[in-house]
């Protein structure tokens, strides 16, 4: 209990997309994870509308901070440091969180860390499964990202191994859900529809798996087009669309490629731990297949619980906490938000 009390109390802000997240962490202990989502406002547009997201962040910011403080049972006066997503993400949305975090840091006279969203996705697992093993491989898959990373040190050395060359994995789920008339966001809806279907019913293509393709990059655009074509052909012929089979076969094509490449990344880098984060990490089939293939290869899989996989403030607070613990220098108050921030920049100073 003494050790817990000695660890600094960190307030984290996340506004890179459509979730206004405020988290509070002490050491590796999660105290609050308040999230306000504007996802319902985007549903009728079939995707996140940046200006709608930014407006919602402004309205939700202070109430979400207050909710997080109440949940954690602490006051602003107790906070030791502040962390906020500096990038990557939607430019206007990032700015709302950064400005709010800077104002709290200034008013409370506490250090602020402008941090990388992807590193935060990795670090959040410390809240659930303890310190990260040195040199693990992380696969981040969501509506905004699909990347494989080698992580010798989440506070300062994160190396990109591969990423999508077109659509993000979660984006492919959204687009295929629209083709199937399932709604938005597509991930959970396809996951559910797929449970009743046969993953081998239709042989959809596995993108970038040829002998000459970049072994650790992804491509999901061709797959999405192939599903749309398959559905259109049946529609034109007046045939009924086997929704569950299409969903299951599409999902299998995505998670087959993701897990195959993730295991390969572990082997190539001598990593015996694979961490999976991002919204798509909540996909039930991805979890099962990753576990199955990793076990065969002698690799341990770490996946945070679903509400820590999606964007949230706790992940930013977790990274902030680790930065404080390692004595890393904080950011200056004029640090910029960067919508295309590279993963190698863990902290923007």
């Amino acid at each position, binding site marked *: 209990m003494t050790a817990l009390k000695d660890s600094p109390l960190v307030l984290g802000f996340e506004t890179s997309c459509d979730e206004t997240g405020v988290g509070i962490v002490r050491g590796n202990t999660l105290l609050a994870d308040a999230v306000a989502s504007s996802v319902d406002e985007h549903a*009728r*547009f*079939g995707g996140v*509308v940046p*200006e*709608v997201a*930014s*407006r919602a*962040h*402004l309205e939700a*910011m*202070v109430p979400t*901070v*207050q909710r997080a403080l109440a949940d954690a049972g602490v006051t*602003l006066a107790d906070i030791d440091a502040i962390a906020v997503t500096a990038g990557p993400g939607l*430019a*206007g949305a990032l*700015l*709302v969180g*950064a*400005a*709010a*975090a*800077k*104002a*709290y*840091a*200034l*008013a*409370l*006279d506490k250090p602020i860390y402008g941090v990388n969203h992807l590193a935060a996705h990795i670090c959040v697992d410390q809240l659930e499964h303890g310190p990260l093993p040195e040199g693990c491989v992380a696969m981040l898959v969501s509506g905004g990202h699909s990347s494989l990373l080698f992580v010798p040190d989440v506070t300062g050395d994160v190396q990109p191994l591969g990423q999508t060359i077109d659509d993000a994995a979660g984006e492919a789920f959204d687009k295929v859900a*629209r*083709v199937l008339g399932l709604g938005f966001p597509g991930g959970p809806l396809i996951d559910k529809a797929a449970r009743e279907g046969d993953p081998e019913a239709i042989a959809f293509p596995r993108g970038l798996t040829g002998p000459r393709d970049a072994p650790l990059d992804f491509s999901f655009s061709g797959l999405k*087009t192939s599903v*749309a*074509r398959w559905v*259109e*052909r049946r529609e034109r012929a007046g045939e009924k669309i086997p929704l569950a089979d299409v969903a299951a076969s599409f999902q299998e094509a995505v998670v087959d490629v993701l897990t195959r490449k993730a295991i390969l990344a572990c082997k190539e880098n001598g990593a015996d731990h694979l961490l999976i984060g991002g919204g798509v990490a909540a996909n039930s089939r991805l979890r099962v297949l990753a576990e199955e293939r990793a076990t065969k290869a002698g690799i341990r899989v770490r996946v945070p619980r679903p509400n820590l996989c999606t964007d949230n403030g706790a992940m930013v607070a977790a990274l902030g906490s680790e930065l404080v613990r390692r004595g890393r220098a904080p950011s*200056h*108050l*004029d*640090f*910029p*938000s960067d919508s295309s921030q590279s993963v190698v920049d863990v902290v923007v100073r």
Partner: protein
Amino acid sequence: MLLLAFDTATPAITVALHDGTHVLAESTTVDARRTGELLAPGITAVLTAAGRKPGELTGVAVGVGPGPFTGLRVGLVTARALGDALGIPIHGVCTLDVVAYQTKTEEPFAVATDARRKEVYWAQYTDRFTRSTEPDVAHPSLISERLTGLPVAGEGAVLYPEAFPKAIGPRHPSAGALAELTIRRLQSDPDSLMFPEPLYLRRPDAVEPGTRKRVSTS
């Protein structure tokens, strides 16, 4: 009293500190693309210049626009967060009213600021304290006839001299003037101070998808 005032609804990121009698410090930088980088350091700069601490602030005055959304929101969320962190009131003031106050004009005039997309945010005034129309956004040519002969303050007049030939100063709002105007209103007409809600005046650009596009060509 120690009032912190700032406005980010135009390319000028302007911050000032006022003790109820005088402007103690003011800092203004014109760079619309760096609002998020410049505002917080501007606030610490005026506090440091006046030898005061954030905890001594008794209120925040903020320009609520109208103005380009991204920069405007930086100011508003900063004001709301400071108000929450310090437990002090936040007073919202229409940015066009600040520019009007700075003209020192007692004759009818208008204020027009840059709304981008070849439009201006604008309003009409009977004197420097009295706005006679609601703030609006429009193409300069559509309002120039209505404003024939009237002087026009703000950057809109500088950008569109054909529509607004009688340009007067200032070009941008100043936070020192925002602080003065806020204190006047606190004394004479506190109801005229607004909750810091942004005056967007435009809806977000977003289109609902129509019927699904076919991907096949045949």
